């Protein structure tokens, strides 16, 4: 069984449609190389894939239920939604900036 199989199918968000959940699950053709310890522990992990595209992987959190999360989102206080939006914006910007810096270090990539 692959490492991904052991930790369960991660939910995948792609900054560009370079890959699919299918080839991440199989690991074939994606050309990525990453240490999935963080993913297994429920921490997001950015990995580099061929063509220098990135995927943010997160493992399912125990007890997490997407439908419940979606239905309860509307009941969140505005301040919590604001905090989530800010975290998302900062995280996205930091990730994009790291990508620019990586390109600067290795423009051929």
């Amino acid at each position, binding site marked *: 069984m692959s490492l991904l199989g052991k930790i369960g199918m991660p939910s995948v968000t792609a900054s560009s449609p370079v890959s699919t959940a299918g080839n991440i699950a199989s690991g074939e053709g994606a050309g990525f190389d990453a240490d999935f310890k963080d993913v297994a522990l429920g921490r*997001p992990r950015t990995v580099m894939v061929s063509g220098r595209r990135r995927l943010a992987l997160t493992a399912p959190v125990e007890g997490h239920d997407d439908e419940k999360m979606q239905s309860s989102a509307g009941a969140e206080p*505005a*301040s919590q939604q*604001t*905090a989530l*939006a*800010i*975290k998302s*914006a*900062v*995280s*996205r*910007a*930091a*990730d*994009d*900036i*790291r990508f*620019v*810096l990586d*390109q*600067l*270090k290795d*423009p051929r990539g």
Partner: protein
Amino acid sequence: MTPEQYQYLLHELAHVAGLPYPLALMNHGRLKIGEVNAVLVYEPQYDPDLMQARLMLGCVPQELKASVMEALLEANYFEGYGGECVFSLSPQSGEIVLTMRMSLLPSLSAHELWQALSDIARHGSQMWETIMAECETLHAGMPAGFHDALAQHA
């Protein structure tokens, strides 16, 4: 990179960026990228192949301070590896500062540097716009008269 090569890089950068006051960059490392004020710091005695770029993003609205600070610290945890991209707070101005380490490879051209700085400034600006938009949304959700009451107590 020698200090002379770095000075030449700055000279070229001022030309590529079309800076109206190239001496501010040449002498003090200051430049404006779009709407973002930036400072390039080079200390060859520390590391001749390292440059730090500091982007001043703006002052955090008081009502969002806790949320923004928490988000920035978390981003430092995940993306600050090696100090390549770190958020901090200027003690003088209270502005959020984005500091980046950039390797001064001999092959680095002014065009590449300007492109990278422009891209980074754009990402930083987008992040800041989101924060300010959230601030406006928060204000819009306040009850009528709240801001007047707040101003009276200020």
